């Protein structure tokens, strides 16, 4: 899948389709990156396309993405449209010979993902799903601790996401014009479980071992605890097992505060983070030996929380949001496209995530 066209230092011609909220994160990166040259912004709304193009310095604004693909001939397209439209738009972009970076979920089913991947391979293009939280600094640090054995053998992984999106002010709870995500097989929950799955799978034992599927079995409980006809589901509690390692995935649309917590427990210690109010604590053996380790861990954790509260305040002032990993993800992706290397989110990452989502969604309503 290497392409000599991208091995030089030439900036890639980029187009963005969709100007929803997440587009600002992508466009801010593209406007600043020397590896990208923003050629076009496309949206069904001419004014939004024009405003985004003006704000981020795109050469053109468009409302018809197929015509835009013809005219702008981008090397890379960012597909940021509502989830139910991803598969169709991605297909057209790949057929036009573009590399595609797409927001999650890449497609509603694993079969559709496979079709798109086959098309991408046939066209010698990359198809890359945004797994942005994997590139947030705390998650990268946790991965490092796992790699270096700081936590010992991993035994348990907890990923818990709480998003109070059933509240009246949420766009997902708007009954006037239901959000397109409600049309996904798993409803609105389907839009978010990609995050839970790729984060959990990241800490399960190596996929190269055994069948290469990445997990042995998964059990899911889906619920619609607040009822009503708009939400198919508003709760998910799932258990994913790989060898002796258990991963618990939970999503709640009702509880507060909004969190994305990850806890990794190993035979030597545990690490915990929340990506929405970032902190990162480590309970692991310290230099004081068995007697002093609990004391030192608590002391260091306390200091870290105080420090993080200040840091989070300054991060908010600087508009550093939980999407901070997206810029790293895009930077690594563009570096790989420019040098002909493998993108940071690989086929295996997307394939395993998509398979797991399929398995979880298959258990919805059962």
């Amino acid at each position, binding site marked *: 899948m290497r392409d000599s066209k991208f091995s030089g230092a030439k900036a890639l011609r980029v187009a963005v389709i969709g100007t929803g909220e997440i587009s600002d994160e992508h466009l801010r990166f593209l406007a600043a990156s020397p590896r990208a040259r923003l050629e076009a912004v496309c949206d069904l709304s001419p*004014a*939004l396309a024009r*405003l985004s193009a003006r*704000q981020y310095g795109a050469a053109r604004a468009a409302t018809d993405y197929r015509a835009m693909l013809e005219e702008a001939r981008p090397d890379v397209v960012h597909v940021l449209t509502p989830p139910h439209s991803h598969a169709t738009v991605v297909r057209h972009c790949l057929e036009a010979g573009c590399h595609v970076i797409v927001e999650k979920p890449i497609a509603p089913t694993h079969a559709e993902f496979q079709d798109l991947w086959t098309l991408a391979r046939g066209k010698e293009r990359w198809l890359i799903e945004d797994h942005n939280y994997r590139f947030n600094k705390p998650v990268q640090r946790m991965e490092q601790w796992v790699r270096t054995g700081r936590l010992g053998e991993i035994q348990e992984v907890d990923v818990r996401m709480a998003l109070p999106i059933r509240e009246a002010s949420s766009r997902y709870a708007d009954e*006037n*014009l239901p959000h397109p995500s409600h049309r996904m097989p798993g409803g609105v929950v389907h839009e978010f479980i990609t995050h839970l799955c790729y984060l959990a799978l990241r800490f399960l034992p190596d996929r190269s071992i055994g069948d290469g599927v990445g997990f042995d079995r998964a059990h899911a409980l889906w619920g619609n605890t607040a009822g009503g006809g708009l939400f198919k589901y508003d709760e998910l509690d799932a258990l994913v097992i790989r060898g002796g390692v258990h991963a618990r995935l939970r999503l709640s649309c009702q509880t507060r505060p909004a969190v994305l917590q990850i806890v990794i427990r190993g035979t030597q210690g545990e690490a915990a983070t929340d990506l929405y109010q970032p902190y990162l604590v480590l309970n692991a053996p310290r230099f004081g030996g068995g007697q002093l380790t609990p004391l030192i861990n608590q002391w260091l954790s306390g200091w870290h929380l105080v420090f993080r509260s200040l840091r989070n305040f300054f991060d*908010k*002032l600087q*508009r550093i949001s939980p999407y901070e990993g997206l810029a790293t993800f895009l930077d690594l992706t563009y570096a790989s496209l420019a040098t002909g290397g493998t993108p940071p989110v690989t086929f295996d990452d997307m394939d395993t995530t998509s398979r797991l989502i399929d398995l979880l969604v298959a258990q919805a309503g059962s």
Partner: protein
Amino acid sequence: MTGASGFIGRHVVAEALRRGHFVSAMVRPATPIRELPWADQERVTLVRLDLRSERHLTEVLLGIETVVHLAVAGWRETVVTTENLLRAMDAAKCTSLVLVSSFAVYDYDRVPPFGLLDETSPLERRPERRDAYCHAKLVQEELAREWGTERGRCLCVLRPGSVIGGNDAWTPRVGIQMTSKWWIRIGAWARLPLSYVENCAEAIVHCAEHRMARGETFNIVDDDLPTQRRYSRRLQKLTRPQPHILPLPWPLLLLTAWLAVLANRALLRGRGRLPQLLRPPSLSARCKPLRYTNRKLREKLDWRPRFTLEEALGRIYRTDE
């Protein structure tokens, strides 16, 4: 009438009915009817539509003479709904639009302190330094003006000041309501561009009726505009339990805001997003001492606000009962 169930919209419908008009009142599909006192009146056609979708929009506009566009949401939604409406008006051959914009579109930095802000005052050139509402309203006006010019349609743009009504006459232009017992007043001598909601509704319908309003822009404010000090004291007397008012001099807050900007430049290389009250353009838009007038509305359309400030406060706080 779009946004017919909104704070201003429901009064505009009532006023239009009072003047004998037939009203097609557009509300969102999930809006509860019991909140709309005029919903079952004979001359009202209640249309349940979400303007974010173009579905059925053209059909409901067939035969409509004038559209009063009041609906507002988040900034992207405001842009999309306005585009959809204008496209549907074209398709339905509806030729007259009254767009209800806002005082938020003005550039308060380019009007000198205690200067007059009127329809000729400069518009904000850099809305990104203000807020999403300012941005949305500017884009909305731009779209409507393009439509008016390119299609040769009749457009009237109305910019109400701070609209008061309902159960509360508070406006953020006075300061901050910290708690129900403690208010912070920012400044003292700035005039408040108040418009009592029934006066504002009357002005909107008046402009929709009047041929002379076409192609014009009007600010909507009441007569006898109070200073922050006079108004906050009046509200204090009307509120139970009576709150305490903590006065904060406007120049002091402005100085603080500029110091925050300098600190942002020095420490965060200007990347910091300061709170609204520490951003000089937003602070000016809210509390800068300026003067306002409804002279153009009076002279061109012979409009007079029906209720004085005291009468308006009496209706809001039911002291007239």
